[in-house]
C-alpha cells in the first residue's frame, strides 16, 4: 500500500500529471490576462517530450554525474515533500509530528540545487545566476518560514494533520492569519522565482542563469522540478491556510475523500490564480530590492500578524 502511495497517488506519477496541468493553467491564464489566446492543453506535455528527445550536452569542465544528479535530486525532494501533505483527509499517508518542518525544508532544497547547477556550469551567466539565487534565498526565506509556521505557532500543533483537524473544528486559518496568507503567497513567488522575483534566471540580463548550460533531457527535468515545486508549494499553502479538503458537509468514506480531494484541488488552483495575477501584474525588480522589500515589509507583516493572533489567543478571544 505504501508503494502505491509513493509511486502512484500522491507520489511521482500524480504529481507529474498535476504539475504539467498546473503549468498549462499558469501559461493559459497568464496569456488570457495579457489578452492573447495562449497554448493548447497538451503544450506542457509536448514541450517535455520534445526536450527529452533533444541532445543533452554537459560542459567539459563540469562533472557529468553530478550535473545529471542535480535535477533528479530536486524532483525527489519535491515529491517527498508532496507526500506529507494530507490531500483527501486529515491523515496524510505517513503522518508524524513535525512533518511541517520537513516539508518546508524539502521545498527549499531545489534552490540550493539550482545554486549547484549554476556553479557547475562554469559559465559566466551560470555563476552570476547561482550567486543571485542564494542571495535571494536569504531574502524571501525569512518571511516564508514566519508565514508558514505561524499556524503551528498559534495552535501549538506541529503536525499537518493536527493543523487540519484544528481547521475542521474551528474556522480556516485564513480567518485568523490573513496577513501571513498574503506573505506566504508572495514569498512562495520568491521561492519559485516567478516574475517579480525572477532575478536568478533573468533572461534579459543573464540569459538563463543556472539553466544556461542545461539542454535536452536534463533541462526537461529542471523545468519539471520547478513545476512540481509550484504545485507542491501552492498545495501546502492551500492545506495550511484554506483548510485543505474541508468543506461544509464533510461526508465520510471513499466518496467523501474523493470530493475532499477535488475541493483541495480547487483551493490549490485559487492559490495558483493569485500567484498568476502577481506574475502578470509586475515587472522584475533588482536583487537588493528583493531583500530590502522582504526584510522591511514582508517579515514585519508576518511578525505583527503572529503577535496579534497570539495576543488574542491569550486574551481568550479566539
Amino acid at each position, binding site marked *: 500500500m505504501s508503494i502505491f502511495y509513493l509511486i502512484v497517488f500522491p507520489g511521482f506519477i500524480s504529481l507529474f500529471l498535476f504539475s504539467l496541468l498546473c503549468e498549462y493553467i499558469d501559461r493559459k491564464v*497568464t496569456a488570457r*490576462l*495579457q*489578452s*492573447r489566446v495562449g497554448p493548447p492543453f497538451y503544450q506542457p506535455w509536448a514541450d517535455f517530450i520534445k526536450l527529452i528527445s533533444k541532445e543533452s550536452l554537459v560542459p567539459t569542465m563540469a562533472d557529468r554525474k553530478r550535473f545529471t544528479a542535480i535535477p533528479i535530486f530536486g524532483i525527489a525532494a519535491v515529491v517527498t515533500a508532496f507526500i506529507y501533505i494530507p490531500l483527501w483527509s486529515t491523515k496524510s499517508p505517513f503522518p508524524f509530528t513535525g512533518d511541517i518542518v520537513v516539508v518546508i525544508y524539502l521545498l527549499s532544497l531545489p534552490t540550493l540545487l539550482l545554486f549547484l547547477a549554476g556553479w557547475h556550469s562554469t559559465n*559566466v*551567466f551560470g*555563476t*552570476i545566476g547561482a550567486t543571485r539565487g542564494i542571495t535571494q534565498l536569504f531574502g524571501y526565506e525569512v518571511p516564508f518560514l514566519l508565514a508558514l509556521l505561524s499556524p503551528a505557532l498559534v495552535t501549538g500543533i506541529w503536525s499537518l494533520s493536527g493543523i487540519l483537524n484544528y481547521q475542521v473544528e474551528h474556522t480556516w486559518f485564513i480567518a485568523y492569519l490573513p496577513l501571513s496568507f498574503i506573505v506566504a503567497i508572495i514569498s512562495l513567488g520568491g521561492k519559485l522565482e516567478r*516574475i*517579480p522575483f*525572477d*532575478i536568478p534566471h*533573468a*533572461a*534579459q*540580463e*543573464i*540569459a538563463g542563469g543556472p539553466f544556461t548550460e542545461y539542454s535536452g533531457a536534463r533541462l526537461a527535468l529542471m523545468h519539471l522540478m520547478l513545476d512540481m515545486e509550484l504545485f507542491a508549494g501552492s498545495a501546502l499553502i492551500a492545506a495550511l491556510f484554506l483548510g485543505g479538503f474541508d468543506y461544509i458537509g464533510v461526508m465520510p468514506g471513499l466518496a467523501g475523500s474523493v470530493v475532499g480531494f477535488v475541493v483541495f484541488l480547487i483551493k490549490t488552483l485559487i492559490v495558483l490564480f493569485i500567484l498568476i495575477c502577481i506574475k*502578470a*501584474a*509586475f*515587472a*522584475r*525588480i*533588482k*536583487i*537588493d*530590492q528583493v531583500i530590502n522589500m522582504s526584510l522591511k515589509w514582508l517579515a514585519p507583516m508576518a511578525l505583527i500578524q503572529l503577535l496579534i493572533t497570539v495576543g488574542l489567543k491569550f486574551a481568550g478571544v479566539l
Partner: protein
Amino acid sequence: MEEREIAFLTVPFGPQHPASGHFHALLKVDGETVLELEPHPGYLHRGFEKLMEYRVHPQNCVLVDRADVLDPFSCELGYANAIEKIAGLEIPERGRYIRTIMAELGRILSHITWIGVLSMVLGFDSANKIAWGDREKILRLNEIATGGRLYPCYLCIGGVRRDISREFVDETSKALDYLEGQLSFYDYFVFKNETFVMRMEKVGRMSAKEAIDLGATGPNLRACGIDYDVRKDEPYEVYPKVEFNVITREEGDAYARSLCRRDEIAESISIVRQLLKNLPDGPYRVELGPGCITLEGESYFCLESARGEKCFHVVSDGSPCPYRVKIRAPSFLHTLSEFPYLARGSTIADIPAIYWSLDSCPADMDR
C-alpha cells in the same frame, strides 16, 4: 605578499541577446556593479552611406527607410527634404500635410514599440505583449495608406507617391481614439506600476550639462530639462501651422525619459488630429517627368525623429546619384557615448533598463 591582480568577470551583453538587440558590449563586472562598458557595434552596419552613392534618387528614397527600422518614416522624410532643398522644389500643401501626418504616426509607432521592448527588458511580459498588440493598429494604418506594413516606401522627391483615401482618415481617427484609451491603460499599468518605478527611478541619471556634452538629443535631452525640439526650433513641413508643446522634465533619469516619451505620444495624437481636421485638397506631388533629376549643391536638413535630432547631409555633383550622404543618427550617440557613460557604476540589472530607456535602435546606430 605581492599584490594579486583581481581578475574581474567580463559579462557579455551579447549581440544575440533578448535585451540588447543587435548590439554587443563587454561589461567589466565586480560582483554586481559594472566598472566598465566597452561597446562593440557593427552588427547591423550595411553601409547605407556608401550604398546610396551607387543609386539614383528614387531608389535611395526606397532604400533609406531601412536605415532606422523602428521609425522608418523619419529617414525617408529627411532624405527627400534634403534633396528638395538642393533642387529648390516647392511641395504642394496637401503633400506636406500627408508627410507630417505620416511622420507623427511613425513617432507614435516608435514610442509604442519602445514601451513594448522596454517592458520586455524589465521582465514585464504583460506590458510587452499588450504594447505589441497595440502597435498593430498603426501598422494597419501604414498598410492602408502606403501598401506596406513597416517599410512605407511612401515618399519620393517632390511629395508623396499616393494620395490618402477617405477610408484612411476614418480609420486613423478610430485608431487614435483607441490609442488614447490605451494611454490611460499604460498610465496605471506601466508608468504607475510600483515595480516599473522601482526599476527606473534614479537609474541612469545624467545632468543637463553632461547630456549636452555627450551629444544627447530628443527625449533623452528633454528629460534633463532642455527644450530642444527640431520641430519647434527649425520647423519643417507643416509644423509651424500646428500647435503642440515640447515636453521637458527635470530629473534626467530613466523614469523621466519614459514619462517624456509617454507625453509625446499624447502630443502626437493631438497633432495628427489637428492635421486631419484641416487637410487641404489639391495635388499631393510635383510631377518631375520621366528622367532622373540631376542636382548640383549641398544641403544639411535636420528633423526630429522619435529618437532625437536626425540630420541628412547630402552633397551632389550633378550626376543622378548623390556624391556623398551622411546620416546623423541619434542612436549613434545614445549607444556609443551616453550608454557607456551611464553604465559606469550601475549594476548588471540596470544595464538593460538604461540601454532601452535611451531608446537607441541598433539599426539606426550602425547605419
